[in-house]
């Protein structure tokens, strides 16, 4: 946040960071979509303000603010962001997606066990022993604690053979 005032030297005034442009574009697109679709929801009916009125106003705010932001950026571009560690993002997001996909199939215990093992052993490079203990506690342990201690049912496996042996 503090970088903006440092970056206002005249020589850097030429370019807007691509990520910022993408962002502005995306917000404008969302805003336009909302404007169009909320108009069709009905802004005003014989019974009073319609379901589209409020979203319509928000779509308007989104579009106009994106435009203003673009103007601001053109006059005085902000610094490019620090950037992200793609490796971290990909491994966390992909592992979560896989976990979510497998959870209903393999059941909470197996899928969470594998998930934790991946994060502890492969990514975190912990010892086998501590990885196994924690992964077991977090999967099988958590399952029993939630199911029986708290009445919170975590998913069980959809496959009968797995299901029968307790997953």
């Amino acid at each position: 946040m503090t970088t903006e005032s440092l970056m206002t030297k005249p020589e850097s005034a030429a370019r807007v960071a691509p990520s910022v442009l993408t962002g502005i574009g995306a917000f404008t697109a969302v805003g336009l979509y909302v404007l169009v679709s909320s108009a069709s929801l009905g802004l005003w009916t014989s019974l009073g303000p319609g379901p589209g009125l409020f979203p319509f106003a928000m779509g308007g705010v989104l579009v106009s603010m994106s435009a203003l932001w673009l103007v601001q950026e053109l006059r005085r571009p902000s610094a490019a962001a620090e950037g992200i560690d793609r490796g971290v993002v990909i491994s966390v997001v992909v592992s979560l997606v896989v976990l979510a996909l497998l959870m209903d199939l393999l059941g909470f215990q197996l899928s969470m066990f594998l998930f934790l093992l991946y994060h502890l052993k492969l990514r975190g490079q912990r010892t086998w022993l501590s990885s196994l203990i924690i992964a077991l506690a977090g999967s099988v342990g958590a399952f029993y604690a939630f199911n029986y201690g708290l009445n919170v049912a975590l998913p069980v496996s959809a496959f009968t053979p797995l299901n029968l042996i307790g997953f």
Partner: protein
Amino acid sequence: MDTLNELLGGFAAAMTWQNLIFAFLGCLLGTIIGVLPGVGPVAGVALLIPLTLNLDPTGSIIMLCAIFYGTQYGGTITSVLLNTPGEASSAITTIDGYAMTKLGRAGAALTLAAVGSFVGGTVATIGLVAAAKPLGELGLLVGPPEFFALMVVGISLLVALAGKSMVKALISGALGLLISMVGIDPVAGAPRFTFGMDRLLDGVSFVAVIVGVFGLSEILSYRKNSKTPLVHAPGMRSLLPSRTEWRRSAPAMARGTGVGFGLGLIPGMTGSVSSLLSYAAEKKFSRFRNELGKGAVEGVAGPETANNAHANAALIPLFTLGIPASPTIAVLMGAFLQQGLTPGPALFTEHSDIAWAIIASLFIGNVLLLLLNVPLVGLWTSILRVPTPILTALILLFMVIGAYTINFDVFDVFVMIGFGLLGLALRNLDIPLAPMVLTLVLGPLMERSLRESLEISQGDFSIFTSRPISAVLIGLGVLIICSPLLKVRKPKALTEDPEA
């Protein structure tokens, strides 16, 4: 004097050994349940109700109140330590609470949260004792137009504080409002922005969004090769707040009490609105507003005080009008009904002994919360000594369970992942997240009150300016938005606010 006597009588009835033990157990169980993901205060209280059914009315309600305080505080613990709010009302605490944790001040944050809860709860209960009736009537003055005007004030507070990046704050706010509109239109019933997905008819669940936007995006933005660890475990000495931290928290707690108490009186207002508006108030009025978001004690003390003040003030409409103002209060009301007590003004005339015992037990519950939790702060923070990779894995585990258990559906896990990515993008574009969270909560309330107001006035927008309270509030909102704009006219050197 009469009131005082009756209150003392209430204390005498509540302070039996048995009741104290119930209250203590309730606090402890509540805190543990609150720490666990997927069980918020409402579910937590509901889960433990069977435990209380066989007690006498006083004992059972004392225990329930204690459970409720405990679950709320438990939610704060995970917000501060793991960046994963257990429920909506402690969502905003994650911003500065977790930032404090990263600075090694987790202990101080938790202690201040407990003290703030105590202060807010106690002051609100005093209000209940001293002036329940007039205060209850005061809450009724807030009709739909005033409700809407209050929401406008709240949003303008958050927008204004963004200073020069007001544009970004507005984008963030509009996004939050749009997300809150996904699902069935709460007035006319038409599905909006559901893209034909049945799972979206019920809207996007708030907890999944919050966990994604704050918790997951934080993990995603962590850089593997960075030298700084995820968090610093606090040493023994830093468990307690420093003298400066105490001094800075005091005004924040005072403001939080005011915000929470005032809003708690209004039927239909939820505790999360109080904590969010208290945060917004800190952003606007605190002397250290520029530090908010980077681990300022005000960002923890204010909201945590506000939500407890709110929770206790919300009992005022229940006692004076019989209106349960929030879901948790409704659960309490259920317990009243089970015991054959109908909440409302008749409670004080027909069962005044029980009514006063309950009020006394609210005081006791607040004290116990403080006595129980401050010594435990050290134990809770010890979780931070866990090495980063293990902690990350455990946080992810917590988040997945938390998201899944909202509806017992994997869908919410995907929602959380999606919002984690959105949160990451917004962070990278330097767009503040707080306005989005605020509008996400305020959105439905704001839309409903706008439409109700326009139905009252039959389409005439002047209803917002012709009624005195809403006119003043709307004026205040405009003033708040305009005040930073006026500053821009000053010489350039002055506008270089380090925050912008």
